[in-house]
C-alpha cells in the first residue's frame, strides 16, 4: 500500500518531468526513472517476468536508442529550434479542461473493485514473488506464452520483422537499384559456364 503511493508519486513526477524538460536528454533520464518505478510496481503486481522485460527492453534498448539518436542529431548544428509559440491563448483553458476530465475520471474509478467474471481462465494461485509456480512467475508466464497464447507470441515475431525491414528501408543506405532478373541471368550464365568448364 505504501509502496503503491511512493511508486505512483515517482511515476507521476517523472512523467511530468519527461514532458516539461528543456533538453531531450533530461527527458530520457526522467523516462528512465519512470520505467524503473513501473518495473517495481509490476513486481508488486506479481508480474516478475514482465518487470525484468521492462528493465531490459525499455531501459536497456529503447532509451539507449533515444540517447543514440539525440547524440547523432546534436553532433552537427542545433537541430531543435523552437519557433513561435502558437498555443499561448488556449493553454489555460486546455489545462483546466484536462484537469477537470482527469478529476472526473479519478472520482468515477476510485471506488471500483474488480470482480472476476466466471469465464476467466485461471491457472495458478497467488504466492510470494519469486517462488515457483505461482501466478506471474517465469514458469507460469512461459507456460501461458507457449501453449494458450502461442499465436500472439508468434505475432510478436512478425511485428519485429516488419519493424526491422521498415527501419532498414527508411534509414539504410540508398543502394543503387539493380533489376533482379538481370542479376539472376548473370548468375545463371556464370554458373553454366563454370559447369561446362568443369565437365571438360
Amino acid at each position, binding site marked *: 500500500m505504501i509502496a503503491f503511493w511512493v511508486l505512483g508519486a515517482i511515476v507521476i513526477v517523472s512523467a511530468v518531468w*519527461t514532458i516539461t524538460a528543456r533538453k531531450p536528454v533530461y527527458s530520457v533520464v526522467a523516462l528512465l526513472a519512470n520505467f524503473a518505478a*513501473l518495473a517495481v510496481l509490476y513486481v508488486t503486481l506479481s*508480474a516478475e517476468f514482465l518487470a525484468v522485460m521492462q528493465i531490459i527492453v525499455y531501459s536497456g534498448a529503447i532509451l539507449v536508442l533515444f540517447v543514440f*539518436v539525440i547524440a547523432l542529431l546534436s553532433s552537427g548544428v542545433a537541430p531543435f529550434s523552437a519557433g513561435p509559440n502558437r498555443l499561448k491563448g488556449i493553454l489555460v483553458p486546455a489545462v483546466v479542461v484536462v484537469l477537470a476530465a482527469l478529476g472526473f475520471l479519478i472520482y468515477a474509478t476510485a471506488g471500483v473493485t474488480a470482480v472476476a467474471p466466471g469465464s476467466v481462465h485461471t491457472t495458478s494461485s497467488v504466492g510470494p514473488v519469486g517462488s515457483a509456480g505461482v501466478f506471474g512467475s517465469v514458469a507460469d508466464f512461459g507456460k501461458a506464452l507457449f501453449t494458450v497464447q502461442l499465436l500472439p507470441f508468434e505475432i510478436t515475431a512478425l511485428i519485429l520483422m516488419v519493424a526491422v525491414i521498415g527501419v532498414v528501408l527508411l534509414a539504410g543506405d540508398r543502394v543503387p537499384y539493380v533489376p533482379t532478373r538481370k542479376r539472376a541471368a548473370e548468375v545463371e550464365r556464370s554458373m553454366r559456364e563454370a559447369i561446362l568448364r568443369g565437365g571438360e
Partner: protein
Amino acid sequence: MPVAIGNYIALSAVMFFLGVAGVLLRRNPLVTLMSIELMFNAANLLFMAFARAWLANAGQVFAFLVITVAAAEAAIGLAIVVTTFRDEKNVDVDEIRLMRG
C-alpha cells in the same frame, strides 16, 4: 492491505493524460515519441493490474505484445526522425509539412 483497482486506473489515467499532453504540446519529435512511450506504459500498467486482479495470464501476455509494439514503434519513429533530419536540417514537428497535414 491490497490496493484497490481504482487506484491503478487513476494512476494509469494520469500517466496517459501526461503522455497525451506531451504529444500535443511539445514540438520536439523525440519528446513526442517519449510521450507515446508513456502512453504505452500507462496501458501496460492497467493490463498488469487487471491481470493480477483477475489472476488471468492473458493480460500479462498482452502487455508483452504491447512492449514489442512499443519497441517497433520507437525504432521506426526514430528512423523517421533521423531521415527527416537528414533532409530538412530542422526537426520541429510544426515546420514539417511534407504530407500537407
